[in-house]
């Protein structure tokens, strides 16, 4: 049964690939929200444009995906967040950027807009005004409570954001995040950009996921234009995506242990991470492999000495990593910090559609590489580790198992990598109207969604990039509840959500 079967709708006029998009009235919009509240559909994305809002939804069982559109003829749309909390920050963002008003919303505080841009509703295309009010954090009341304000400039070398803790003694009663500090206006810069510039912007949405974003953006563009990419290019893309996953997981495993004061692991995984980046540099000419994945294929081939460099890397990981797993598993003082700390409830992971290690450590068995089986993952074999405990320890173990899977995937890719073209030429233009495409790829921290509308000259009319962190950050607020403040860095690192990726 398709997603649209129970939702009254009219198919959208523009071609939308590979999944359908349809326009709904208020009845259809509310029915779609009903399905999400019931848990039959998962919110995959929620974004606006000047006169419409769109929701992407996933059927977790059939892995069907569909987009519903509500035309905001009077500048409003029925609030999603008031009925389905995972939509809240996205809904506040839509209001901040486009000035569209969610009717009957419970929370209309600004999210990205800190009143510093000099103009409200910057993507609305109109001149408007907005009342400037001091940001109000949600109240927490009770005897002996005090607040701790942290950020936006943090103590470590990390991205900026504000955390407002309410604590009773050492125990956190409530954490509220306020982000938006790194808002660069990426979606506005995308508008009118050619594909090359837009792809460069996509690479820099969240630098740690440069490949995943470039991959998603390229696939969305290829879907919109209905073109196929040569097999060799898809293998090279996956090779880079898995190297990116390895580098980040090594960094995270070490950083989590370091926040439990176990520096030895940090030093050891730091070596593996550096070796991975150096191999990536040898193979693709850039340590973070930025700007190599482009719409149509890949911008350059793997360097001749890249393959031996990668084989050496795999051998080194296979030699060293098992010892590090043992070290993690057998250090009781470390486990004492990670086991039962920062638990994410399975029901929240499901409700929020949390991707990546956050979801998979709390029983949500979803990985875009398997669910969508985009090329070349349809011809590679791998397992998706899932655990139930939902604590910091489980998020470490998911990463450990994923490192093993990525090593195996890279070996398969190197074995299967055949000769062939690197790029399919893009058409100069498509004549006539616009076209729309959408893609989901699995970044190291979870699924990245890119939705794209191109005009007849292949310029971006509208592009929305949705990081996995949108649905993970709110769960960090739940995970820290009842834990001590001193364990916050540990919990936070085990999530390692992106700031830039959600601030855009």
């Amino acid at each position, binding site marked *: 049964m398709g997603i649209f079967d129970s939702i009254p709708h009219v198919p959208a006029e523009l071609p939308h690939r590979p999944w359908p998009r349809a326009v709904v009235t208020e009845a259809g919009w509310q029915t779609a929200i009903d399905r999400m509240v019931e848990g039959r559909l998962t919110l995959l994305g929620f974004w606006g444009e000047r006169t419409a809002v769109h929701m992407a939804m996933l059927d977790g069982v059939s892995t069907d995906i569909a987009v519903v559109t509500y035309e905001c003829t009077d500048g409003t749309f029925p609030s999603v967040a008031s009925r389905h909390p995972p939509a809240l920050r996205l809904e506040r963002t839509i209001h901040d950027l486009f000035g569209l008003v969610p009717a009957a919303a419970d929370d209309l505080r600004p999210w990205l807009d800190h009143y510093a841009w000099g103009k409200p509703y910057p993507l609305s295309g109109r001149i408007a005004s907005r009342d400037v009010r001091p940001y109000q954090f949600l109240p927490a009341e009770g005897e002996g409570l005090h607040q701790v304000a942290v950020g936006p400039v943090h103590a470590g*070398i990390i991205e900026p954001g504000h955390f407002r803790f309410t604590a009773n003694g050492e125990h956190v009663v409530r954490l509220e995040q306020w982000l938006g500090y790194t808002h660069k206006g990426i979606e506005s810069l995308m508008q009118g950009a050619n594909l090359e510039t837009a792809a460069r912007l996509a690479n820099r949405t969240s630098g740690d996921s440069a490949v995943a974003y470039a991959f998603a953006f390229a696939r969305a563009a290829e879907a919109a234009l209905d073109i196929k990419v040569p097999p060799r290019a898809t293998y090279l893309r996956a090779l880079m995506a898995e190297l990116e996953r390895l580098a980040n997981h090594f960094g995270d495993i070490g950083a989590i242990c370091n926040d439990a004061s176990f520096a030895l692991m940090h030093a050891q995984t730091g070596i593996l991470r550096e070796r991975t980046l150096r191999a990536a540099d040898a193979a693709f000419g850039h340590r973070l492999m930025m700007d190599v994945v482009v719409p149509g294929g890949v911008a350059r081939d793997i360097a001749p000495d890249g393959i031996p460099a990668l084989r050496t890397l795999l051998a080194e990981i296979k030699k060293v990593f098992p010892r590090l797993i043992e070290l993690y598993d057998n250090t009781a003082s470390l486990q004492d910090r990670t086991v039962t700390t920062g638990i994410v409830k399975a029901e929240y992971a499901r409700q929020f559609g949390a991707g990546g290690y956050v979801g998979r450590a709390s029983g949500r068995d979803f990985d875009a590489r398997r669910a969508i089986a985009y090329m070349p993952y349809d011809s590679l074999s791998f397992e998706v580790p899932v655990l139930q405990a939902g604590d910091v320890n489980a998020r470490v173990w998911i990463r450990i198992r994923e490192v093993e899977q990525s090593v195996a995937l890279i070996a398969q890719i190197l074995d299967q990598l055949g000769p062939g073209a690197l790029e399919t030429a893009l058409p100069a233009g498509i004549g006539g109207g616009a076209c729309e495409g959408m893609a989901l790829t699995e970044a190291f921290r979870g699924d990245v969604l890119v939705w794209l509308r191109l005009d007849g000259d292949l310029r971006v009319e509208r592009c929305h990039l949705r990081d996995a962190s949108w649905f993970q950050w709110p769960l960090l607020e739940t995970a820290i509840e009842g834990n001590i403040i001193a364990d916050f860095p540990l919990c936070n690192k085990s999530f390692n959500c992106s700031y830039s990726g959600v601030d855009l």
Partner: protein
Amino acid sequence: MRGTLLESLTHGSLTEPAPAPDESALAELATKVNRAAQARLGRSLAIREVDAGSCNGCELEIHALSNAFYDIERFGLRFVASPRHADVLLVTGPVTKNMRQALERTYNATPDPKWVVAVGGCAIDGGIFGGSYACVGGVSEIVPVDLHIKGCPPSPTDLLKGLLALLEHVSVKR
């Protein structure tokens, strides 16, 4: 654990020889850094990193400076948790308007003498994000910058070359 520790002791060091200080960085510093300020510091600098809206790519490479290959602390350079303990602000990003005030306050909280190093293409002029309604575009628009380190992101070696130039400049004039 013992095995891993022992092996670290018996195997050769991974730490690589220091790169030469960047020449263009030395030239830039010669014209900008106040000599009176230089005499106040020894061959040691405390660095406070400020992300003023970067994509986090620069942060990844700044992090790498602490790994076994680059081992930044052997040069007397170390990262500190507060601007009040810092000699150097290492600033990344196109300075988003939402971070402007935080950057100004961080700068004001850093005691004199102090240096500002702008890291990455965005920190120079906004880079790919220049011209956005949400970005100021370049660290020097907000605070005086003594040194720029180019790259998107600059590699750890590039970062080290720039920082060594700063260190050399500070200590030579002592």
